[in-house]
């Protein structure tokens, strides 16, 4: 069933892309000439397989992950959540906690482990800024004379931590202690149990569902040191970014639910991801305006 599903989706994508590319580059003509002049059915089969593999390797991101290790899959999943050379996006956060609603609109600039978050709405928190340089974090707002250093544990809003809206780097921050098969809404996943490599990670333990086909994280459970699950998250990837002329799914929504108070929900919408080179000055306290 799984193979059929894989084959069907692969065939669909292969067909549409092949037709487009082959028409443009006259490969069909070339292949036809090659086939006509070749000797025997083996040569034809070889060319057909070669061309198919060629297009698969060059025009699909991610490729079929049969040979990828869980670590590589996790790295790919991190790419879809902002762990890139430089990105800017807008984030809309809606939180329902203890029956109280709260809304924030943020502009986020991220590069690797560094992030700069500027609050845009609502008016009474506009201008609040959060600067993260790896694990060094500072908070600033218009009424404060100088930025205040804060620890990674301090909450951003609702159930979201600061690390939830910045780039993730699970591949380096966690080790995979166990994998198993699973599914999220009938989409086959590899379920990774991630353990923080040291006490500096935001979460001690994460159970992470990564889609085998799309190589994106679909669902996560977050645990404390004592093994108690305290929140869950579901991810959507309706944004697409182009990397090296290849389309790549990118995070569009993260829904965080409190594991105990299930009515406490924080929804994060990620929009307008812009890939760009981010200068060092963006993450520099000496330049940051208050």
């Amino acid at each position: 069933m799984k193979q059929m599903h894989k084959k069907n989706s692969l065939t669909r994508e292969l067909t549409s892309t092949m037709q487009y590319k082959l028409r443009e580059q006259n490969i069909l003509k070339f292949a036809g000439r090659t086939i006509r002049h070749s000797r025997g059915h083996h040569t034809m089969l070889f060319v057909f397989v070669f061309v198919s593999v060629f297009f698969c390797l060059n025009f699909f991101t991610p490729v079929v992950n049969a040979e990828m290790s869980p670590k590589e899959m996790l790295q790919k999943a991190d790419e879809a959540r902002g762990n890139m050379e430089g990105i800017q996006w807008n984030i809309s956060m809606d939180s329902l906690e203890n029956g109280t609603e709260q809304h924030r609109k943020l502009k986020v600039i991220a590069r690797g482990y560094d992030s700069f978050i500027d609050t845009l709405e609502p008016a009474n928190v506009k201008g609040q800024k959060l600067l993260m340089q790896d694990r060094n974090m500072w908070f600033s707002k218009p009424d404060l004379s100088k930025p205040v250093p804060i620890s990674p544990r301090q909450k951003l809003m609702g159930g979201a931590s600061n690390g939830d809206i910045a780039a993730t780097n699970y591949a380096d921050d966690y080790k995979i202690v166990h994998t198993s098969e699973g599914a999220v809404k009938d989409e086959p996943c590899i379920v990774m149990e991630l353990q923080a490599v040291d006490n500096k990670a935001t979460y001690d333990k994460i159970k992470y569902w990564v889609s085998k086909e799309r190589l994106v994280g679909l669902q996560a459970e977050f645990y404390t040191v004592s093994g108690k699950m305290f929140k869950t998250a579901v991810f959507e990837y309706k944004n697409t970014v182009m990397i090296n002329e290849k389309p790549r799914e990118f995070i569009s929504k993260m829904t965080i639910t409190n594991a105990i108070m299930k009515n406490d929900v924080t929804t994060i919408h990620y929009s307008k991801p812009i890939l760009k080179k981010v200068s060092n000055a963006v993450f520099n306290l000496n330049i940051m305006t208050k």
Partner: protein
Amino acid sequence: MKQSFLFFFSFMAVLLWWPPFAGADDVGEVKPTESQTFKAGDAGYANQSLLDKFQGSLFADFRVLTYGVIQEPNNTTQNPNNNFLQIPHYTADVELRPDLRFDSKYLELSAKPRAKLELREWEDGSRSGETQWKDDWYVNEWLVRLNAMNKVYVSYGRENLQWGPSFIFSPSNPFFRDNGRSNPYTEVLGMEFGRLVFIPSSAWTMSFIVNTDEGRNMLVWSEPFEKTYALKVDYMGGENYASVIISEKDYKKTLGYFAGWTVSDAVTLYSEGSFTQGSQALYPKKDLSILGAPMQKVHEDDSEIEPIILLGGSYTLDGGGTLTLEYVYNGPGYSKEETETYYKLRRYGALAFNLGNILPSPVGPLVGAWGQQTLIETFYPGLKMLQNNYAMLQYTQTNILNKIDLTLRWTENCDDSSFQVLTIVSYALGNHMELFTSGILNTGGEETEYGSLIKYQVMFGIKFTL
């Protein structure tokens, strides 16, 4: 001048209601269900008109604060009968605080004009029963900054230039005595700085800073302003940071530093300090004068290094609240003997100040002037903290029930056991309004650091943000 400010503030308020400027950074409604494809650099910037680019570079905030303050001056030798400092018992204030910024690729301009209207009322001393209206129109901060290749930044302007992780005060900062942490609703007044900032990499930054003018931060009774030059080098690691500041003022050099370490998800440690040869502060000196020991710069030419070292740490609880603990050793502060002489001198000063109004001329005015000068020097001897050992414990929590921010701080002078309790609470009323209150309670005898000026102060108000 006032009319110009009035017109400007009105114009700002209207401008901020006007949609194109109300959220210059507003990118519109998020439509998360739409699949969106973006290419590298696809901000549409290249296709924007000049007007669109200009509008996209403009940022503005407008805040209005209205608040009242109730405070009880302490009748001490520093402020006898409240006749020396004349601290009002009640004030009612309205402040207009627009912040403007133009930020393009190579040029950044910003300005923070302010208008403050204040009604003051006294209940004791020579001004008992008196009320006074006071208005102040000024630009607290402004800045012109040029950006060369995102590596070199040159700026000049009036700034509240603060740095460092500490709460009690910032010993590494050679420019400001007040780091603004005691009351976020009262702005620190800006001074003029020229800066050259070089960012060669993500880990290193070098700044050359010149404090060219005292700007708005004028201390009425301080010595004439002297320029201060500083070289600041910053290092940023993965989970730690450190900065070194070498400054020079009036040929006296000071070495400052601050550093921090994110030990874990919940724990941070930090330190801040400075080292100076000798001290530029005034110290009570015993002499044989009938009027007692005058204040003098007795350690100005000392070769000994006077350190100020602050150690601090914070722990964030699972629930989000943060406990912070700081300890300061203030080397230039008064020893026990110097403190006793200091308070003795203050008693003489207060006596002379009071006698100035009683004794006949020409003795009375002379004695009164000596008393006033002595009280000026004891009020501001040039030290950031009076004695040697201080401790602070603070609890902060933000976003309680998505509405409340809370700060509780206790600061103690460990040498004279006087302490101050500070509370700051804010409550969000919708998206534009915030109620706030802060309270200060000082304990200790009349001849203690925290007991010298006011017994308590309560501030309560509303902040409205457009």
